[in-house]
């Protein structure tokens, strides 16, 4: 395996620190730079940037406006790959929108939809497409395939890359009461290009842990170290925290601990 790029998300409120700081190999971009962001020119000049925006949900084909937006951002960032999520979070008619990542039903029909629409998007991009797994808090009876099997078939059909979000896998394992390493083993790890790692925190509504813009625990870093050994094509690990509440100290310390764990 080539040496891994270790990075974080670009948090605009930490722009000054990210321009000056060391130890960050790349920055993932969740939002386009704000027009008045004073740090953006230096950030763009200094860092490798990864496009990780919301482009659209691939249960439907992306429209021309969304494809053009993706192409424009990819060019602006000079991104080595373009990321999107396995998500279906708003209804076809636009009436209901969860405003939060939510997985599709793992069925043959949704597999065919995602394969078709991801293939169409991939053909319109000048960079490889990678797709990120999304955690489910509950199973839906209508799903026909286990998520890892559905993902394997998707990646085999599209030959896109896999952005493996480890806390998402860890949470699913937690709520299924299985060991994270065991649940992870079923995923198509040979397709992984990038890994996300972060902390989890107790959520009052869920009555258990969930994704949070927090530092990864030692347990999560151990899980990362294990996962990386199973991902021979992995090129990058990103500290997945994007929030105005995130401090520069937490971001730099997390990246440093990730580097140390690998």
């Amino acid at each position: 395996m080539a040496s891994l790029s270790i990075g974080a998300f670009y948090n605009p409120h930490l722009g000054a620190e990210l321009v000056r700081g060391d130890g960050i190999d790349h920055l993932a971009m969740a939002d386009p730079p704000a027009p008045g962001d004073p740090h953006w020119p230096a950030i763009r000049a200094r860092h490798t940037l990864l496009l990780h925006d919301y482009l659209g949900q691939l249960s439907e084909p992306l429209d021309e406006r969304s494809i053009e937006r993706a192409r424009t951002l990819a060019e602006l960032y000079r991104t080595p790959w373009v990321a999107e999520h396995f998500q279906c979070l708003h209804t076809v008619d636009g009436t209901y929108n969860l405003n939060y990542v939510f997985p599709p039903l793992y069925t043959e029909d949704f597999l065919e939809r995602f394969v078709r629409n991801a293939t169409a998007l991939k053909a319109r991009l000048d960079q490889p497409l990678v797709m990120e797994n999304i955690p489910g808090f509950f199973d839906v009876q209508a799903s026909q395939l286990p998520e890892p099997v559905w993902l394997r078939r998707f990646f085999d059909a599209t030959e896109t890359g896999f952005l493996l979000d480890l806390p998402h896998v860890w949470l699913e394992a937690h709520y299924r009461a299985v060991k994270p390493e065991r649940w992870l083993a079923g995923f198509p790890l040979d397709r992984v290009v990038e890994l996300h790692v972060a902390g989890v925190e107790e959520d009052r509504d869920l009555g258990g842990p969930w994704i949070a813009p927090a530092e990864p625990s030692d347990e999560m870093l151990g899980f990362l170290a294990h996962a990386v050994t199973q991902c021979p094509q992995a090129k990058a690990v990103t500290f997945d925290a994007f929030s105005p509440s995130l401090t520069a100290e937490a971001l730099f310390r997390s990246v440093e601990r990730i580097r140390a764990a690998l």
Partner: protein
Amino acid sequence: MSDRALQDDVIRALADAPYRESAAWRARRLADPDRVERFARFLARHFYYERVVHFFKYSRALARVTGRGPEAVLTRPGFEALVPTIVLGSRQTAQAVAQLVVTHVGGAGPVIPYLADLLRYEAAMMVVEAGPRIWRDGPERKDEGVGSAEWSAPEKVEGTVLLELAYDLPLVLPQLLRPWSDVPQAPARSTTLLVARSPHGRVAVARSTAAVAALLRLADGRKTLAQLALDAGLEVRELEQTLHGLVELGAVRFSTGS
């Protein structure tokens, strides 16, 4: 039912609390009801946290003077009481959540002269943003420009708001988000603002004029451009320019002239 329709049903159950309680949803037995309820509550708090922080960012910047952060309402009993009625993204729920913030932050008392105006402005932004939106364009999307022969009857878009304020807020808003030691002051000057949303969900604010106010009052989807110009007392050229701006903002759309 198709898989896509089933997915929509799950999304609706998570977004729409009354539907989640309905016999129709419960009879489907698609998922563990306790897990669905917990996740729906989590989503509701997340959904309105993002909106309150975004739309009430100026009040948030004033929290060190008012002592009241807008997002605090999301963990208070008023929000808990709303949960059984919440429909994510609906105008009604946006109104109810915004009112919680207005009551909470407004309760700080007369510490800032323009606070009541500011809260009305921020609440209007949040409510205007609510409602169904277009997530993807169809391939047949038509030009809806002014002057197009088949689009000739302008109509005010539902939810568009004209705000009559006692203070000139646009002058003070940018200052509130920059570092300050003394609270930035807004000039006491009667100001009318137009708040509108594009079909794709982009909220825009513009200063309103007498012509804009007249057009929004008269644009009912039936009057032609010529009738509107006559009723509003505007030259056709001025009318077209004003309408063009209103269409760009999302405040006016065109009904088919047939």
